[in-house]
């Protein structure tokens, strides 16, 4: 069996950043396994701009952003295998993959970086009633058809869910001559970034129906219409509030799910909230030497944050190989009131260089709220927040010195008036 230092599963934004960082850290033998015929992952179909503001201080399209990392990986001589599907990983870090050239192959890795990204929640997962005709697509699938294959999935479109891909597709399909009749969002607030609400809906006069959901899909062979209804505060449909739209297409942008079947097969400890692995400050999972980063760990809003997380996981993999990491010990990081999760979930201060960057999401939309930080149950610091929303990931940087001395837990809560 071939032995390699680091196997990176997935050649998208997280995986490329991780692989590059590994190389930069001086790790010789780094292999990226990518299922698609090219590197870059979902960035390749995201031809709109807005990528790279944090990383490169400029606005790039998805493919242009990917290109920067692909070029870097090439310059660093990262070995990348395309058309390669990983079929299994084991606890002792044997990776099984298949591709047309080599067939089924097993390699023994010293460290593994999980960077498989996420998939879209489907119609089936949310049990939308109605017929099951052609014309109901995940927004990302429609985006791929349009931006990579050059075809429109429909001409009159309704969108369920105000996730960013749905908003981007509302604008994109409008620009290609389709009519987007509206976007329905079951929550009383939008699930997309504020800038996408403005640039993709408001600027094109596309109505947003908050607290609404799809209650019927019509059309036996092809979608001929959808019905939306209002929902109450418990998300129950309010009878008598139906609105009908004649459309040939329903796009769904109803959430993303980390693609973790390999992770689960390896029996890595999972976080039920994020649907990703539990990781420590080094992005190391419950199995020493297996790291996770990007959307397979938790779904991000911005690719820049994904790349940054990938680089951290890559650096940690390198430190693991150099035997600089302590896998055990440390304290837990927890979400308290109004916070849905905190990343990372465990911290061993000994592994921290100078600071820890926490990423977390709140459960409610609010203005003038307060973030409270607790160390071992004691309030340690309060931070005023002018605006928070579940759709916008929050970032909190803590100095190493602030975390030293914690025995049991570090907790974050959000207090809303």
């Amino acid at each position: 069996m071939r032995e390699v230092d680091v196997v990176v599963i997935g050649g998208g934004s997280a995986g490329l950043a991780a692989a590059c960082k590994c190389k930069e850290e001086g790790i010789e033998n780094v292999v990226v396994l990518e299922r698609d015929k090219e590197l870059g992952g979902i960035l390749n179909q995201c031809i709109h701009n807005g990528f790279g503001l944090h990383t490169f201080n400029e606005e790039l399209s998805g493919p242009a952003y990917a290109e920067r990392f692909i070029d870097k990986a090439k310059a660093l001589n990262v070995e990348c295998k395309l058309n390669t599907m990983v079929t299994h990983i084991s606890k002792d870090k044997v990776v099984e993959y298949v591709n047309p050239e080599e067939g089924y192959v097993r390699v023994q890795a010293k460290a593994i970086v999980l960077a498989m990204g996420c998939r879209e929640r489907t119609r089936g997962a949310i049990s939308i009633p109605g017929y099951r005709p052609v014309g109901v697509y995940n927004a990302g699938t429609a985006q791929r058809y349009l931006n990579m294959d050059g075809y429109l999935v429909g001409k009159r479109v309704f969108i369920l869910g105000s996730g960013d891909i749905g908003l981007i597709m509302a604008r994109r399909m409008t620009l290609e001559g389709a009519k987007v009749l509206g976007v329905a969002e079951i929550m009383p607030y939008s699930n997309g970034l504020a800038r996408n609400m403005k640039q993709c809906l408001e600027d094109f006069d596309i109505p947003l129906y908050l607290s609404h959901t799809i209650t019927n899909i019509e059309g036996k062979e092809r979608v001929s219409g959808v019905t939306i209804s209002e929902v109450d505060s418990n998300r129950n449909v309010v009878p008598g509030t139906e609105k009908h739209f004649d459309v040939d297409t329903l796009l769904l942008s109803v959430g993303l799910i980390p693609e973790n079947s390999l992770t689960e097969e390896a029996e890595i400890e999972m976080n039920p909230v994020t649907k990703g692995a539990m990781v420590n400050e080094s992005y190391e999972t419950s199995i020493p030497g297996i790291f996770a980063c990007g959307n397979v760990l938790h779904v991000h809003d911005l690719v820049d944050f994904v790349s940054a997380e990938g680089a951290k996981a890559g650096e940690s993999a390198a430190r693991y190989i150099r035997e600089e990491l302590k896998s055990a010990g440390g304290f837990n990081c927890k979400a308290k009131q109004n916070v849905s999760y905190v990343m990372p979930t465990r911290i061993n201060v000994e592994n921290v260089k100078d600071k820890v960057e926490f990423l977390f999401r709140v459960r409610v939309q609010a203005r003038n709220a307060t973030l409270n930080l607790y160390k071992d149950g004691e309030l340690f610091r309060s931070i005023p927040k002018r605006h928070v929303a579940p759709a916008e990931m929050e970032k909190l940087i803590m100095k190493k010195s602030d975390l030293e001395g914690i025995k049991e837990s570090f907790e974050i809560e959000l207090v809303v008036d």
Partner: protein
Amino acid sequence: MQDVVIIGAGIIGSFLAHDLSKYDLKVCVIDKENDVANETTMANSAIVHSGHDPKDDTLKAKLNLRGNEMYEDICKKLHVDFKRIGAYVVATNDEELEELSRLYEQSKRRNVPVRYVEREELVKNEPNISDIAIRAIDLPSTGIIYPWEVAIALMEVAVANGVDLHLGEEVTAIEKSENGYKVITSKGVIETKYVLNAAGVFADDIYRMVSDNVEFDITPRKGEYFVLDKLNQPLVNHILYPIPSQKGKGVLVLPTTHGNTLLGPSSDFVDDKKGINNTSDYLGYVRREVGKLVKNVPMDKVIRNFAGLRPTSSTHDFIIEEAKDAPNFINVAGIESPGLASAPAISEYVIETILKNKLALVKKSDAIDSLPPITDMKKLTEEERNAKIKEDPRYGHIICRCEQISEGEIVEAIHRNVGATSVKSIKKRVRPGMGRCQGGFCEPLVVEILARELAKQKNDIVYDDVESNVLVAKKGA
């Protein structure tokens, strides 16, 4: 001139076509759908019942028992998975216990293997059994199967033996003629001596084309289902039935041969024979009913809902007979549950008790029994897989991550003698799109492969029906 025209390419039409293809006859199958097994056969509970349940002295009872006996051999020949995982009928109160003992006695009388399972064993064998389950009967001869896999494999053999298959062709009228019938379709006229009416929910409409005295109605009875993703720990190991009621066998919980879990069906008479829409009311009903059989149902693992229509006849039994006022027109109608379980026996019954008295049935000497199946990479050893990939690298190119399907397998499905021409027909044969992403990643690749292999433009590729183009326009067109 055909000897026999079979109307309907569901499980019944496919068994009839397959069985008749062994004889020296000219046989033609017509279906308005774009693929074999596309309606009721595509959407049911996928169970080969033991025969414990139908009423005494019915064709349902007789043919279910016989059908159950026949399946194992047929599936072996056809290379289709059939697993006798057994079923538990579960009683949850005193009234149900009484009905359970009646079913036990009835099974004994019919020589259906049966035994009682007390709560302790029930909990051991089915850790997720509901807290109110008291006692069950075990019916070990009950099996699971994918009905469309059987139908497609049957039809492939039939076509290899010379049966003429007309898909996407709707029967619009039938006229009596000198030698039999003229079947008028959306595409032409087919003359035949005999007509076998296996048109499922439309069987009464087809019958009305030749008779003014149609003495039965077929009313579609809808069943709605949930499909769960493959689970790390199975929810159930057996098929779990509740105690049956007036409305049928009730809401079941069962594993499928590909490792999913099926919850359903509801039971609701509807007017529309194409009314396969899901409703929040009946999905809610299924969710509640399932809770009586099992606990810890992971509803967050639901990947799909569907609904199918049972062709329920006003006679409450299968109708398998020559029409009284239309000689040589044979109805094979009202084939609702246990229709799938009975299907091979229904075909045998049609041939042995009806056709043999009318036609000289001479076995063909060169008829085949089976075709080599589509390569299933998952079933090969690693050595065999790598040999296959070496020979053709497309078998090493995984298109569907969820079900781990290679390009080679998809290409094979397209070039079979009853080949896949649509996204859905690929899904039925080799399963891309059946998994948790529901085609989100693989569908664009499947469309690309279909276009390439069929020498079509991508926007000419359909999902199912001829009108159901996946892509409606080229960008900028």
